[in-house]
């Protein structure tokens, strides 16, 4: 395997790894309200999240700025908590909410630093950005797209087969995410 493929795989597995479910949980709270027909809104949201987390991942990956890892591990569950609470509001139940696109971006900054903490563990000082940071980032994007697709499929299945309303599913997942994120935040108290 070449270096590029290896880091692509590591990036993909990092976000799609069920054991590291904090990023998955965040994507779930962001997109549980959406159905396939809201694809335009989803593109905005995924783009905002991607641009912002890529920015901080590169910043930290190139050693431009790196906040303490323990704060990031605490702030990641906080982004989930806030998004889950926001889902109780009117805007939070609107699959077209601009506020949520904004949240995807701002919170993406925090998640990007989270990705960078893992990235630092798997590279050498001699690793360069083109054969490691770039494929790692692309791997994360691919993993993220897969997760959003799965969330949409589950949502569609629930709605059309089990007649679960998107609004109820959104509230249910937000409740679950809130509980798990609260636990994570307490365990990662800086």
């Amino acid at each position, binding site marked *: 395997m070449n270096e590029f493929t*290896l880091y692509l795989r590591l990036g993909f597995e990092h976000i799609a790894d069920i054991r590291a479910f904090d990023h998955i949980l965040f994507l779930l709270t962001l997109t549980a309200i959406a159905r396939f027909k809201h694809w335009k809104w989803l593109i905005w949201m995924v783009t905002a999240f991607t641009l912002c987390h890529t920015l901080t991942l590169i910043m930290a990956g190139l050693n431009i700025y790196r906040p*303490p890892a323990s704060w990031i591990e605490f702030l990641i569950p906080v982004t989930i908590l806030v998004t889950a609470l926001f889902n109780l509001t009117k805007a939070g139940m609107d699959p077209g909410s601009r506020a949520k696109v904004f949240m995807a971006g701002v919170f993406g900054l925090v998640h990007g630093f989270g990705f960078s903490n893992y990235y630092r563990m798997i590279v050498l000082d001699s690793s360069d950005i083109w054969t490691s940071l770039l494929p790692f980032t692309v791997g994360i994007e691919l993993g993220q797209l897969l997760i959003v697709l799965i969330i949409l499929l589950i949502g569609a299945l629930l709605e059309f087969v089990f007649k679960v309303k998107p609004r109820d599913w959104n509230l249910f997942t937000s409740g679950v995410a809130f509980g798990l994120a609260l636990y994570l935040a307490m365990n990662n108290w800086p």
Partner: protein
Amino acid sequence: MVGNLPLSGDEIRHDYFVSVAEAEFDPSTGRVKVAMKLFTDDLEAMLKKNFDVAPYLGGPNEDGRVDSLLTNYLSTRFRIKGETEFQWVGKEVNPDATWLYFTIQMDRNTTEITITHSVFFDMFEDQVNILHLRGVGGTSSAYFNKEKPQQILTIRHE
């Protein structure tokens, strides 16, 4: 973690069990030089568990047997098919990560190496080891885990 004060951004969060290593094959001597980065706390835990020592890595009270115990451990957990000699070079201990340096003697004309890299597979179920083999013609990389502890890498001579 509760009570863990962040002093700087250099601290590494340790939720994953990963290691990364770089190996370089010198075709003029047949020697493979390896530099391996491991988490210092994992290494301490491994020495305690396997050899029943309190290692105090990098400190003034470091156990005098540490280097030979590491040689012992590495030479059984990082193997190259056809190796003739394993030689310990040294280590560099940092609070987060420790670098281990060693060399493995191979035949000069080796073109393909079969590596078994099972460092820490005895410690952690989820351990993943990454290796980059640098040669004159470029780098080939490999990913080792418990399901696949052995990989074949090609040495590019030009």
